[in-house]
């Protein structure tokens, strides 16, 4: 509780760092925020072309020419936020080492801008996605508010993983590379680009262990079937987030003194 009060006191710092991050990303570039969109757009374009046209991938049971694009965009945009939080968090203590060594402030404040910037980027993408849905007549209606639950679970999980990694990264710089590879594996181990039905039965069973799967599937339910998904399947990823979160707090507490010495 006290930590939360402190964090609120330092909201100005969180805002300043968030603004700084956004400004850094866009100053000096001609197209500015457009780059934020162009990268995932190109990805979506390639996947849509390759999978839905060349490979003739069809989503079973749904008969719209845009269905695959909706399927893909839902997953890619949500995954993008998860990935950004993990990737930005893991190096945050090292990145702000200069500040951490010189000034004492609640270190967890540093994660607020990470989430805020990721959320900002996500909202920009989501807004365009919604425009696309409205234009194609595929907008899910009120069911869209049900997306808050799976997205929240994704953010919590990413944050827990990010906090834990940020403490370890101070000592083990290789973690950065390892995480990038693992994220790749998890991305392809989640039915984002492909529908899960193309996998053999036993592989589908294995994928159930992937905690990213349930939230993504919930989102698919919302945006493809326009239905409010059940909350129960989110219990497993939430539990994973909680366990990782507890481990993160333990790691952080045990290592805090050593982190200050090591930075």
């Amino acid at each position, binding site marked *: 509780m006290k930590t939360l009060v402190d964090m609120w006191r330092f909201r*100005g710092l969180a805002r300043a760092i968030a603004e700084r991050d956004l400004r850094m990303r866009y100053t000096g570039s001609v197209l500015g925020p457009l780059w934020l969109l162009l990268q995932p757009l190109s990805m979506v374009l390639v996947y849509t072309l390759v999978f839905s046209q060349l490979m003739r991938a069809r989503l079973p049971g749904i008969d719209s020419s845009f269905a695959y694009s909706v399927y893909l965009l839902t997953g890619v945009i949500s995954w993008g936020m998860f990935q950004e939080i993990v990737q930005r968090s893991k190096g945050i203590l090292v990145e702000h080492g200069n500040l*951490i060594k010189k000034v004492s402030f609640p*270190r967890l404040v540093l994660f607020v801008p990470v989430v805020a910037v990721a959320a900002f980027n996500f909202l920009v993408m989501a807004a365009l996605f919604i425009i696309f849905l409205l234009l194609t007549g595929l907008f899910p209606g009120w069911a869209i508010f049900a997306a808050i639950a799976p997205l929240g679970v994704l953010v919590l999980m990413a944050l827990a993983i990010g906090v834990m990694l940020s403490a370890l990264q101070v000592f*083990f710089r290789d973690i950065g590379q390892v995480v990038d590879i693992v994220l790749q594996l998890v991305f392809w181990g989640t039915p984002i680009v492909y529908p899960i039905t193309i996998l053999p039965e036993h592989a589908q069973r294995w994928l159930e262990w992937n905690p990213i799967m349930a939230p993504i599937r919930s989102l698919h339910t919302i945006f493809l079937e326009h239905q409010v998904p059940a909350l129960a399947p989110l219990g497993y990823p939430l539990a994973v987030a909680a366990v990782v979160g507890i481990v993160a707090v333990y*790691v952080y507490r045990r290592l*805090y003194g050593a982190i*200050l010495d090591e930075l």
Partner: protein
Amino acid sequence: MTALNLLHDTTDTQPAAPRVAPILRAINLGKAYAPGRGRQVAMRRLFSTKAEDKTDLRWVFRNVSFDIARGEAIGIIGINGAGKSTLLKLLTATAMPTEGSVECTGEIAALLELGMGFHPDFTGRQNAYLSGQTQGRTRAQIDSVIDAIREFAEIGDYFDLPLRTYSSGMGVRLAFSVATAFRPDILVVDEALAVGDAYFQHKSFARIRQFLDEGTTLLFVSHDPSAIKSLCNRALLMGSGELLMDASPDDVLDYYNAMIAERTLAHEKAATPESFDGRSGNGKARYDAVDLVAPRTGVVNQGIFRVGEPMTVRLTYTAHEALPDLVAGVLIKNRVGADAFGTNTWFLGIKEIGEQAGVQRVIEFQFEQLNLGPGSYSIAVALHRDMNHLAENYDWWERAAIFTVVLPSVATHFIGTAALPLKVVVDPVAIGAGVATPATTGTASDPTS
């Protein structure tokens, strides 16, 4: 996260003491760095269930305890590597103690090791905001002082240029201005000011003094004895892995200088046995000892004197044969070796100091008022025949003693090597009105009065 709470905890967990609770307490503080690489340390911390083995730690210091009361000005002294900066880091919670604890009940503003975590790509203004926000200030609060920060730093248009374009001096100017934009309960300054130029140093010292008057507690690390003497009312001496001394700045500095002198002496002896050490002469007469005598502390090897204090140079010498024309001389040189003052017994008309062969005698040059400007000085002493040492040089001893002159705490400041007694009169009656005379107080004189 105890570290975070240190700074912002306003509740005093100690049982109510009859005296005023200290604003900052160090309780049995110790800091050590574990051997081995950081990742080994991390693995041990994460997976070892045993209590940490303290035997093979490299201790910076241990068992450091002190209480600091509100409004005290503490100087922290010690040679390089004594742990001064580490101590400040523990006190400001930018490092965790290995043992012991820190209790702090005030807001700290710290200027540690040049800079306050500034970002090189951001302008001075942006860094000022960021820095204020790391102290938990709101944007509106910083808005209200940003112009004052800009004005105090006096870096002109650089204020809106990226920090990487700054000189190190400008960085310090900005850092000091930002750190002192709000009056903190505790101000911590770690040698940072040494980088600034004399003008800015004076300006920042003036601000520190003003804060002290208003009740701020000061923790100040410096190698400049005059700064410590004039700002602080208490000093801590760090060394040999512990807190060596906790006393008045005078006592601590005297002890520290004696300690340094011993080290230097031991070092020089080890390095150059019997080689030239700034001493020459044919040895017919020779100094046995050169001592500086201060009125307060007696004989000091490397003394600190306030401007205008008495100082005695006590020369112990032996003439190894009868030397009727023996002359003893003293020459005070400033830090860069320029003569500040010199005289000898020939000029002073003192005769017959070398008649008795083989007898040790003492001659004292008693300066009633050491009217020298602040700084470091060395004394060369000589024994020679007649007016100067060109006739016959018995003994010439460069840097026989070294001393430092500091400004008395309440004195008006001045610059230069000479401390000229001065009285400033505005509109002296004898001359009448209309004579422009500089006023020391800086207030304009009224020509009609």
